[in-house]
């Protein structure tokens, strides 16, 4: 198993405030890795630092053997590293179809019109609900459907590594399950590697191979999903169980 993403000692600041403190992690090809932690722990900042949406001081990010610490965000997308942002951030006024086309934008500019059209078909096969709503304004979809659209849109760029930010946020438990089954099948059927940020640790650890727990900008735990599930601190702090229950 080769290392696809290698993050070493990232330090990220918002003004004078240090939000990431020497964060190191790695994702192997074909893995689903969960990044867990409470609100404000630095999970999203970690993703944004990897994609260079925010800049960090010191440390390094290596993707597919290349140092991307100084790369531009669009170059990074072109290399197959795509982020699905928190809160979906789909284009509400555009149709489902146009949202998907936007996902293939980098490739369209590269002249891959045919490939993008084929991928659109693939996405509609994978997410039949989106085919039903293909002409509909994206803003009118339900929360779960919008999340599906956000993932499908990201997949249009043919990512090798998908960074998923809180796909379960604001969704009903049943929908969360459906989304995570989808993420799981992305890896199993399409070989997509996933770095999954989740506050819902229980759900994330069900599909993840390994995980990291962030706390106020520092990684405090690292381990296999089984190890983290067994960790009483994780269970108490992130699985919402009291000491008596764990």
């Amino acid at each position, binding site marked *: *198993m080769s*290392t696809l993403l*290698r993050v*070493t*000692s990232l*330090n990220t600041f918002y003004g004078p405030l240090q939000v990431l*403190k*020497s*964060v*190191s*992690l*790695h994702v192997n090809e074909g893995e689903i890795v969960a990044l867990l932690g409470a609100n404000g722990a630095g999970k999203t900042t970690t993703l944004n630092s990897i994609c260079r949406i925010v800049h960090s001081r*010191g*440390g390094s990010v290596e993707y597919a053997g290349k140092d991307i610490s100084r790369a531009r965000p669009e170059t990074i997308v072109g290399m197959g590293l795509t982020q699905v942002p928190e809160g979906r951030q789909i284009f509400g006024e555009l149709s489902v179809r146009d949202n998907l086309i936007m996902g293939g934008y980098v490739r369209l500019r590269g002249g891959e019109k045919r490939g993008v059209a084929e991928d659109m078909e693939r996405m509609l096969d994978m997410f039949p609900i989106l085919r039903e709503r293909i002409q509909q304004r994206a803003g009118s979809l339900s929360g779960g459907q919008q999340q599906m659209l956000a993932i499908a849109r990201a997949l249009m760029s043919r990512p090798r590594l998908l960074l998923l930010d809180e796909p379960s946020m604001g969704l009903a438990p049943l929908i969360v399950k459906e989304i995570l089954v989808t993420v799981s099948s992305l890896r199993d059927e399409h070989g997509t590697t996933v770095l999954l940020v989740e506050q819902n640790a229980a759900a994330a650890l069900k599909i993840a191979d390994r995980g*990291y727990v962030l*706390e106020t900008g*520092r*990684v*405090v*735990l*690292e*381990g296999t999903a089984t*190890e983290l599930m*067994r*960790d*009483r*601190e994780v269970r108490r702090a992130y699985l919402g169980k009291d*000491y008596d229950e764990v």
Partner: protein
Amino acid sequence: MSEGAIWNTERETMPRREIEQLQLERLQATMNRAYRNVRHYRRMFEAHDLVPEDIASLADLRKLPFTTKQDMRDAYPYGMFALPLREVVRIHSSSGTTGLSTVVGYTRNDLEDWTELVARNLVAGGVTKDDVVQIFFGYGLFSGGFGLHQGAERIGASVLPVSSADIESQVKVMQDFRTTALVGIPSYALQIAQAMDEVSVAPSSLCLRVGVFGGEPWSQKTRQEIEERLRIRATDIYGLAEVGGPGVSGECEFRCGLHVAEDHFIVEVIDPETGEVLPPGAEGELVFTTVHKEAMPVLRYRTGDISSIDPEPCACGRTFARMANVRRRTDDMVIIHGRNIFPEDIAAVIDQAPGLGPSFRMIVDRRGAEDTLRVEVELSSILSEDTIRAIERLDRDLEERLLRVFGFEIGVHITEPRSLSANGEKRAVVIDNRKI
């Protein structure tokens, strides 16, 4: 599983770059927890004006001061724990040969890791699921017995937890239960061989195949003797209670040093005088940092064990660095008449002297201004001939040998066979009365 088997190929053959990434990630997480939860470490960081994130690379580790046996004693019993006792499912304690014992806790994950690490060592030493493993490490607060027991069960061997039973019982179990693998302290294995001689049990009448030994420094000569007398292949394992017991490192079939479980430990070798980190190959004191322990993480623990590190991959396929077999300890060193004498040096002389050993004690006294060294050594077997004269002859013989080697007089006192080596204790004990 057979010769050359590897228990966890994914981990034990990781490329160096991946080992280092994993070590860094785990080190940082460990430091963050130790800083948050262990007063000793928080103070240590603060005293050096450091925060955990200052350690941004493995090389930065040397910014941290060492943790010593004394730090552990000061925290006795639970002060070094990073989690409350309710998270701890097992407690062991060091054997306490150098003073007050230190206490180590394990969470469920820690036990799981420990079992895995010992399983790796046993497999590297040639033990398979088909073996009948007789463990004569003590079961108790000492971590040896339970540690090896879990690992042997994990690989699926049939485990005989004989523990520190008397020698006659050990031999009987070996015969009756058809033991194929011995696990314990090497000097005790020699005593078992001795006892077999005395009651005329031929090794060829047993099913013994391999032996995995540790818990005390032992020489190449001891290994040869064990192998010849018990007709087994003997491999060395290493561990210490303070960083979690056995499972820290172990030899593979090539026996060219012990592979350190680098996914769980960072090993350094330092100059014991200056604390300076020494390059690969240089001999010095071993320092370990645990990177995956939950209940009791340990940062830069000075072991007192003398060794060196070879980071080159091994012919067996394992990529983990190898440490040279530990033959001596810094705190067992006796400085007398300006000479540094290790128990190992005395052991080498005793090994040359017929009829004596293996166990002995070194006793240092100060009479007026003069320091004296005395060696108490046990007879290898009961003498049949004229006892007093025979003992006098052995006594004189050893005194002459010691004088020749060390250049000053070392008194010898001979004791009954097995009087110093009851039930699997260490081969050499140093008593320095000058310190008191």
